[in-house]
Every structure is written in C-alpha cells, then in structure tokens.
C-alpha cells in the first residue's frame, strides 16, 4: 500500500490509511524540541511560502498547483484545529483532482462568485519550522492575512497556515496545506478564493 509521503503517485490515494495518517500528522506536531531554528533553512521555507502566496495573488493557478505533490491535500477545516475529516464536513477538503477541478471551474468564465475576479494580497508572518519523524519532511506554521478586493469591497481573511513540506533537494513540494481561519465557525461571505 502506498504511503502518504511515498514517492509513487497514485490518482486515488485518499483512503482510510491516508486519513489516519493525516489526522496523526496534524496533531501534536509543534514540539519545542523539534523546532528548526537554523536561519538559512527557515528562510528557505519562508521564501517558498512567499512564492506560493505570489502565485495565488497573481492568479497563476497552474504554477501554484505545480508547488503541490501529486498526492496532496488542501484542507480548510470547519473546526478549530481540524478534527477528523472522516466525521465532519470541511470548509474545503481537496485532493489533487479536486484542486484541478477547482482551477478548471474558475477558468470556465461562468464561476459567478469569481466574476469579477478577486484581487488579493497575502501577508505571511510568524513562521515556525518543525522537524518530523521523516528527515525530508518539515511542518511549517505561519500566520496569514489576505486582503481581498472584489466588486467594490475590501475584505479580510485571517488565520494560520500549516504546511507539510517535503524537501526535494533545491526546492519543496507541498504535501498538505491546512488553513485554520480564525472565523472557521462563522458564516463566511463568498469563500471562493483559494486561501
């Protein structure tokens, strides 16, 4: 059986084992003894997150998706820290195919929630990097604030990102991006941008 972080791409990788590992990978990972404080490495993580933010702000969604592993998940939980996605609906829970679908939908010209398209700027800060049991995988926690301008109004999205990144030599790929909105339990107006 394929593992979440395995190197062989399978189009149908979301199974019970994946969910179990996902829940486990996203609980209790911020351990002081695992924090990576090396400024050079931390800066490489920061630059990668900045790159992701720039692709989203510039609506270069195909380039954005290339930052993600073939067996990735984009997860915006509807609970505080992300409980068990097998038992709760998420604000969004996209595997690779659903991310491709999401981008496809936005490109049809008939996704009215994005006509006109939102203009965004993303600020990312307070970056912390943590080692995991696997040498090539790190968890990166950050705070974000995204200002969205659309149809004459300016709005804010705020929260925390948790990126599970694999170091593939001179770059990273995103295995999982979890987005914890501070208002995850409130009614959200037009949540149609990728956070």
């Amino acid at each position: 059986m394929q593992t979440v972080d395995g190197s062989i791409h399978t189009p149908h990788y979301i199974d019970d084992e994946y969910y179990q590992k996902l829940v486990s990978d996203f609980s209790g990972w911020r351990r002081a003894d695992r924090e990576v404080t090396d400024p050079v490495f931390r800066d490489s993580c920061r630059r990668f997150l900045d790159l992701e933010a720039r692709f989203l702000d510039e609506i270069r969604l195909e380039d954005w998706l290339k930052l993600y592993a073939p067996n990735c998940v984009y997860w915006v939980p509807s609970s505080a820290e992300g409980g068990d996605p097998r038992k709760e609906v998420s604000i969004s829970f996209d595997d690779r195919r659903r991310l491709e679908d999401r981008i496809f939908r936005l490109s049809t010209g008939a996704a009215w929630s994005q006509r006109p398209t939102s203009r965004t700027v993303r600020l990312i800060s307070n970056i912390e990097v943590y080692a995991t049991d696997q040498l090539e995988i790190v968890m990166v926690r950050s705070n974000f604030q995204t200002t969205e301008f659309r149809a004459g109004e300016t709005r804010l999205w705020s929260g925390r990102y948790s990126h599970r990144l694999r170091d593939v030599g001179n770059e990273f790929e995103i295995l999982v991006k979890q987005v914890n909105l501070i208002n995850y339990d409130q009614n959200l107006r037009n949540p149609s941008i990728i956070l």
Partner: protein
Amino acid sequence: MWQGERDVTKPENTSPAVEAAGPIFDYEMMIQEDKVHQRLYTEPGIFREELTRIFGAVWVYLAHESQVPEKDNFVTSRMGLRPLIIVRDSQGDIRALYNRCTHRGSTICRQSSGSAKSFQCPYHGWSYFNSGKLSGVPWPEGYACDFSDAKYNLAQVPRVASFRGFIFGTLNLDAPSLGDYLGPVREPINDWLDRHPGGKVKFSSANRLKYMGNWKLAYDNSADGYHVLFSHRSLLAMENRHHEDERKGMSFYKGSPDGAPMYVKYYPNGHHFKDKRPNIENRPGALWEIEGTFPGMEHYEALFRERYGVKADRALDLASSEPVNINVFPNLHILGNHVQVTQPISYNETDTTWYGTAVVDDDGELSGAVDDINTIRMRTQEAFPNFGEVDDLANFEQIQAGLAAEEDEWVYMHRGLGIKDRITEEDGVFTAPATDEVFMREYMKVYKNLMTSTPNIAITREV
C-alpha cells in the same frame, strides 16, 4: 441590527402590540399575480414587520434533535432575530428559552452549543435552571420583591414541537398544530429520512455561508429549476469534464428540462418540493452513478464492492446526494443530504448554513459500513457549497444590487402562468414542470396573507 438607513415612516421601538394595529405597507399592491414589488427585498420596515408577522407567526425551524441528544444539551438558535437557547432540559423536555436575562436584557448564554444544567448571566450573575426558572440572584436581601414571581423566569417560545427530529417553534397561539402546518410536505421529508437506516440522520458540522441580500432571495431560489443551467454552469462543466456521457450531477436539466420526468410541487402554507428522483432509475447504484468525482471515490467504491458485495450499491447510494429540494416555509431546506437553514440578519443580509448529515446505523443494517459511508458522505457534501452555492449567493447579491433601481419596480415570477394544462392543482397542491415559478407565486400569496394578518403572539414562562 439594521443595515443602512432606518425607515423614517416607522416609529422607533415598535413593539409587536403596536404592529398589531395593522401593516403600514400596501401588500395588496406589492404582491400581484405575476410579480412582486422590489420593496419586499429592499425595505427595512418590511423586514421589521416580517420578524413578527412571519417569524413570530408561523412554525419556524429552530434546531435538530441530534444537536441536543442528551439531557442538559443545548444549542443556540434564533427565531427571526430573537436569540434562543434550544435545550433538552433536565427532565428531557425540549424548550426554546429566550437567551435574554430578565433583569437587564443581556444574553445569558454565549456559547453556540454545550451542556448545562443552569445558565448564569455574566453581567450581574442572575442564574436560571435549564427549565428557564430563576434559581437565584446575588445578594437577594437588596431586593424587596418576591423572586418566585414567574415574571423573573426566562421567557420561552410557548409552542415548541418536533417532527421526526426537526424542532420547530411558534409564538402564535392561533397557529395550527405543527403537523397541520407542515401538511403534505411531510411526505417527502418522510421519504428523505426513510432512505436511511432507522429512518434518521444526525447532524455533522456545517458549511456556513452568508450573503448580502434579503432572505426571500434564498426562498425564491429553493425550488427554482430555471436557474440551474445558468447559475451553475461552471459546476456542471466541472462535474462532467472527465465524463463523455455528461450525466453527472444535475445534468438532467440540460436539453428540455420541462420535458423531463422531474417536477415541482407546491404545498399549502408556503412549502414546496422539487422532486428530481424520477430522472434517475429506481434501482440501487443509480444515485452513485451520477455523483460527481470527489476525494477517495475510487478507493471506497472498490472497498465497498469487495467487502459488501450486492449491498455495496445501497451503501454507495447513501453517500450520494438525494435529488430532492424540500422547502419548509420560512427557513428550512432539505436538499441532497444537507439540511440548509436560512437565518435573516437584516433586510439585506442573510446567513445560510448547510448542515452536513451523517448516517446512523443503530441496528447494524449496513454490516459495519456506516463509518466508511459517512467518510465519503462528508466529501460529497462539500461539493455543492464549494462549487455551486457560492455562485448562487453571488447572484443573490447582484439581485439585491439590481433592485436598488427603485423606479423599476417589479420582480417577475410568471413562468408557467396562463399556459393551459401546464399546472395541475388538487386540494391546494400544485404540480408543474421543473422550471416553473408557480411555487414562488403561491408562497407569495401565503406571505401576503401573513403580512396583512395579526398573529396572536405570546411568550410563556415557567411558574
């Protein structure tokens, strides 16, 4: 609570008793056979009247029993703008308490759900049992009054009733029984529940959305088969992009939807039902076949077929969207596997909360498949709020924007009107082709009747 300008023709602090003197708007003029006036959507004063004449007068959906499964469980809710605590009290009775301290008016419960035998007001410490009865006040020797007087107990919705897990309440002592109010819309609700083991579901978490528009825009849309191909064009394209036969999702609207077997039914009291089931073959596995792609789809299908054999199709159907829209006036919608609740915030702001539902299998009918069914049911339920509803809500907001053109007064709802043999009627139940607007015209008649009537509003308190 108001957004924008107050209505200057209406006095401040209008109480329901003053409103009982009669409506100040001309609903006869504003609601006609084929059209309604834009002010129904844009006028703050009309919204203020709706809070009493609609949300005080009819059975309003408040909560689901699976949200308060045990004694002392509570969930907060609203009836119009009235803040409520829906609680299963220590005796097991479900009550709808006003979340309003009888002392100075503060809300006493600020958590959205939980378990509590009593509630203490954070402001001055007055405490209440979860029956609503006052249990004590700090330093009572400073009061000359008798605190056993019922007027110090929390106000409550006087009539609270449940239909198969759905809890409703009304302030109107003259309203019919809940059963009579629901009437024949109970049939599709029964069907929707009975496809599940034990005839029930439990609520999961929700996709919570909001739009800057009037609450009736959601009700107008709720059985609207006319908008599907247009408002949801990107969703349909997305769902079918890998499928040459293009049968996924709501593809049955393509071509000539009025010639398809689906139909819309309007029931008395403003309820209605869009039944798309006749488009689908009545056999196990047929729902699963039109479900759009979602994370884990192939894995779980293979697992189910291997593990459950001939029972796999039923299990997969339970994770698939049921093709119905059941709409209970004014604020409850059962569609797909969702329970959608409309919460008005102001004349131009509305929350629409899409509760996910999960299958419960107390008797083991599903041979242990229930957890896996719910795993994939969570994913199928995320699709429409993410890729469909957002576009509707954008369109609702643009209706609200368009209606600011106040001299262009009318909103038309006349699709199907005056066409011979298109609509049939029997005992107040209308049946029409899927894109017909008959349900809007008929619910607006009910709305007009309510807005020009005086409900017999009351609250109650424990004694």
